């Protein structure tokens, strides 16, 4: 019941962008074009990591105007559950893999008079695709890009050439920082705001925009919570009649899939709502990590997003 059939691809290239980031190129195994997508879309990459399958979402950074291949830039996360480490260590050119078709939870609103893009670090990837798209279709935009240093700022050269004066860069190691108050109080009516980067930066931008009176419908953000590792726990699946053990480096959704159950999902980052699952009973604490459920839904203890959220306690029964 995952909403899509996987696509067979071949890793056509792996490029080291800097000491932390690698770029992966995928071509269709059957040689055809990959599905069309729009700037801001992501794919879910399937990784056969030992005896379990990992599925992790990554933004597409290549141009939506060229679907002969897909490109994703992945930053190595030494603290994560291992998805990015797997990609960095195991994935080599020529390897066969499976990816999901693209889905876009961070699209441009094309009614905008102006697109104001704010990126921090690896959060630059969806904007690489979006600016490629706008280069062709036209559209007024500017990109503000904060990086740790010139060495760790991915694609500064490509963006500089493509965007010219529309690119504004900020280097942490030179004590440069974005003045969100000034930026967000001087935008013309009809501007849409897009932000992608580390959580504290996203929160700061959203808070500043809301305080400055920006309506929610003009604010867009990409906030994938990567499923974090955590204490192992057990979940009973009432519909399937099985009990699954969720390992330290496994998400609840991955454990459900490992039991052979085809559960729904789309983003695997707690943002899209597709995997929402009803909690029938529990003794313990639901550890919500998503950006989907409302506060009252969390308080009710009746729902969980198994792609990112975990559990701590004696007993958890899910309607799955």
């Amino acid at each position, binding site marked *: 019941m995952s909403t899509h059939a996987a696509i067979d691809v071949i890793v056509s290239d792996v490029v080291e962008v800097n000491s932390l980031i690698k770029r992966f190129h995928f071509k269709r195994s059957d040689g055809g074009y990959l599905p069309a997508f729009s700037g801001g879309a992501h794919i879910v990459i399937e990784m056969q990591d030992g005896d379990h399958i990992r599925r992790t979402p990554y933004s597409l950074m290549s141009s939506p105007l060229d679907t002969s291949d897909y490109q994703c830039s992945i930053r190595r996360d030494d603290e994560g559950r291992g998805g990015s480490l797997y990609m960095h260590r195991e994935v080599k050119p020529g390897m066969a893999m499976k990816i999901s078709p693209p889905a876009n939870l961070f699209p441009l*609103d094309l*009614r*905008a*008079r*102006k697109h104001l893009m704010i990126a921090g670090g690896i959060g630059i990837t969806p904007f690489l695709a979006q600016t490629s798209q706008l280069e062709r279709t036209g559209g007024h935009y500017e990109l503000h890009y904060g990086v740790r240093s010139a060495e760790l700022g991915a694609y500064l050269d490509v963006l500089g050439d493509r965007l010219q004066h529309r690119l504004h860069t900020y280097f942490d190691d030179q004590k440069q920082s974005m003045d969100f108050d000034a930026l*967000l*109080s*001087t*935008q*013309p*009516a*009809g*501007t849409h*705001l897009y932000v992608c980067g580390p959580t504290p930066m996203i929160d700061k931008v959203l808070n500043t925009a809301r305080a*400055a*009176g*920006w*309506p*929610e*419908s*003009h604010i867009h953000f990409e906030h994938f919570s990567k499923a974090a590792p955590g204490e192992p726990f057990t979940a009973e699946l009432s519909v399937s009649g099985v009990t699954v053990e969720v390992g330290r480096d496994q998400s609840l959704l991955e454990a459900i899939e490992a039991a052979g159950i085809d559960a729904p999902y789309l983003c695997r980052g707690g943002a899209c709502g597709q995997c929402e699952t009803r909690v029938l009973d529990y003794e313990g604490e639901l550890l919500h990590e998503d950006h989907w459920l409302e506060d009252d839904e969390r308080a009710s203890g009746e729902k969980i997003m198994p792609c990112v959220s975990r559990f701590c306690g004696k007993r958890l029964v899910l309607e799955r």
Partner: protein
Amino acid sequence: MSTIEYADFKSRPFYGVLKPASSVAHLVVAEGEGAQAVLDLVAKAPADFASKATLLYAEGPYVSDNSNREALRALGFARFHTSATAAAAVPRLNGTLERLRMGTQVYLTGNESALSLFVKVCTDAGLDYQGLQTEHRGSLARRMQCVHCKGITEEVTTQPAECAHCGLLLLVRDHYSRRIGAFQGVNINAEDPSDVPAKEEIFR
């Protein structure tokens, strides 16, 4: 004052009650009886509201009593402009929107025809309708698009109504186009043009 009965029709616009927002600046656009909604809004707002706000007021055609206009003038808006009709307010509204900054709250009030027009002008300027505040005051007269000739007829009060452009007799539907800012009018007697249903004045 006429009140709207909201039918269960998804596209039909829903209006609320204007509430002062905590934004740095405000743009208020009012038509006719919307003047009272502006007075109510300012009465609820902090004392410096009008000093940070622009008010465009379309008084309505053939108005001999200037009391609404003078009551609004007395509120002390930083910028206050009047026009005879909602349509006549559009060029100034467009110019104001061009210079507007994000974070300015927009408030729209007046009869349904005027609200349709104001919302459309604002969304054409790139503002999402969900960020606009609206309050209905005055008549329920509708802005209607003829789905056959695409002509817009303002201030439609009857059901059915004639298209002011092609002359077809139209059923005025609750089906609303936000892009065009108008209710959809569909020919009511296409099979037999000699069958002319009686007109009722229902959008008063």
